[in-house]
């Protein structure tokens, strides 16, 4: 990609570098790792085509019945109830992920046990499975014909189990690399100064992991509020009780109300975006504090 002129000293026999050569070297020294205007252009174009344009189209569609129609669609009791159920369940799922995901990452990094590599590979399975498969599996296990007599279909715990299944990898995978990088010496120093394990974890390890945990939880939450396939069979789709926003949107499309469907979609997207944005801010603040502490 370099557009520096390549000069070759011809026939002089001297090894004295010619001025252009020196310029080239200088240029090479100045490499910053930035890709320049072309790279920025390509990235922006791609993001526009893949993300921004469709979102803009969706927003336009959501005002298909005018601003009044948009407000009506988003504030209708069942739509609000579905948003409420979605957010509540997703928060619970994110919290579960924070605790269990960190624990699993901890075990995978710090402990040795037979079959560890298999477990490590299993973590990613929920990403690879079509979510509807998760729904079928969970229905078989917790549905009306449950072999273990736990009946969760058409209940909110059923939703939570389904969403916990598909969001499992987020926290684990964001905490793991940080935990691998953590400097053990600090912990050893703390231990030699008489800190017990809980204190070490709380005062030394957790602050380091916090940004990773938060961003993982944010991704899990954002994924959970948009999830459809995994809850479609086990959730029961009961309005005001277990109907998730994604199912409400699907229902609006089925009954030929595309503008209402788009309006609720926009509300859902706004919630997801704000969540991710706030978590980004929190995480980067945590990062800065870390750097200052060092």
């Amino acid at each position, binding site marked *: 990609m370099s557009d520096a002129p390549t000069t070759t000293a011809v026939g002089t026999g001297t090894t004295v570098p010619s001025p252009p050569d020196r310029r080239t070297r200088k240029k090479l020294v100045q490499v910053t790792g930035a890709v320049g205007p072309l790279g920025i252009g390509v990235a922006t174009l791609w993001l526009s085509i893949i993300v921004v344009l469709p979102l803009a189209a969706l927003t336009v569609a959501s005002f298909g019945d005018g601003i009044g129609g948009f407000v009506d669609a988003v504030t*209708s009791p*069942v739509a609000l109830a579905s948003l409420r159920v979605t957010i509540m369940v997703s928060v619970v799922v994110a919290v579960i992920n924070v605790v269990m995901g960190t624990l699993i990452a901890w075990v995978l990094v710090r402990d040795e046990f037979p079959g560890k590599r298999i477990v490590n590979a299993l973590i990613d399975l929920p990403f690879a499975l079509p979510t*509807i498969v998760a729904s079928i599996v969970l229905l078989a296990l917790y549905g009306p014909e449950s072999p273990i007599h736990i009946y969760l279909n058409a209940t909110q715990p059923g939703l939570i189990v389904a969403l916990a299944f598909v969001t499992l990898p987020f926290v684990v995978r964001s905490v793991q690399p940080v935990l691998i990088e953590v400097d053990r010496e600090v912990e050893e120093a703390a231990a030699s100064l008489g800190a017990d394990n809980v204190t070490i974890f709380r005062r030394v390890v957790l602050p380091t992991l916090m940004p990773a945990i938060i961003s993982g939880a944010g991704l899990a939450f954002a994924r959970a509020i948009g999830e459809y*396939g995994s809850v479609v069979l086990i959730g029961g*789709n*009961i*309005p005001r009780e277990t109907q998730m926003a994604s199912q409400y949107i699907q229902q609006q499309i*089925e*009954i*030929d109300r595309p503008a209402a469907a788009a309006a609720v979609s926009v509300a859902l997207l706004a919630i997801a975006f704000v969540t991710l944005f706030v978590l980004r801010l929190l995480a980067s603040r945590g990062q800065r504090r870390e750097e200052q502490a060092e």
Partner: protein
Amino acid sequence: MKRRSRSLLTALVTLGAVALTACSGGASDTVGSDAVGADGSAGTINLFAYAVPKPGYDKLMPAFNATEEGKNVAFQPSYGASGDQSRKVKDGAEADFVNFSVEPDVTRLVDAGLVDKTWNQDAYNGIPFGSVVTIVVREGNPKNIRDWDDLLRPDVEVVTPNPFSSGSAKWNLLAPYAAKSNGGQDPNAGLAYITSLVNDHVRIQPKSGREASEAFLQGTGDVLLSYENEALFMESNGDPVEHVTPPTTFKIENPVAVLSNSKHLDKANAFKDFLYTPEGQKLWAEAGFRPVDPAVATEFADKFPQPAKLWTIADLGGWSKVDPELFAKDTGSIAVIYDNATR
């Protein structure tokens, strides 16, 4: 060595991925979208139908292939909620033959110029089979449901699909409406019943008759309103349900039509005609649908008992009157009741 095992692994993973995608079948909202029947050398009929008659078509498609006309004709069936399917075809899904639950779903295609205006001007008005609205209950009828009034008891939860996407739902609501309003003479009495039913007894909104059955079989509700053929189908599957046909109920008439822009017009028409032959009618009856051919109907009289009073859509003034009055979005009286209850 290492290199070889890696490529082997890649091959295996690829194979797995291919297998997974192959298993995933068609679109998530249609059932069984793989071609069936013969090799298709004589053409393929794209069949768009509502969700419930699948057991009937599973019998009729191979029988059609066995006839002279239907030799080597393949089928590409798609089943879903009636209104949903009709809108898909109107929006450009490629179809040759359609079968919807209610006439307005065909009318939508006539208005779009996809189906000929004369589609229902044959001996049976474009309706090769029908059914009646029935009440499905749990095995042994624990809540002792006998008639429409029993559904309004405080401890009864009713499962019926959403009338905005499902044709079955329209029939299910028309049955008590006609019974209570004495065939539309007293619409307020009919609407009062529907209001109470929808507000206090209907909790979920499945999109099609088939989805409503699935929800009921999974344990939701005490009562399922459904087509008699769907009830018979569940019973023949050994599901723990039984059906009670109330003394006054409603005649269901499910229309079929051939699209005028069909690429295989003659084959699609031949298939449509086959549905009316004595052989086709027998197969419908065996699948639990009431045949329209009088001779076949007499043959199956004990399978399909006649209710004391059977209202028809014609008694209420036909679909062209009923649909705008009761089901039109935002204005129809039943649509408004549904909107208020489910918004």
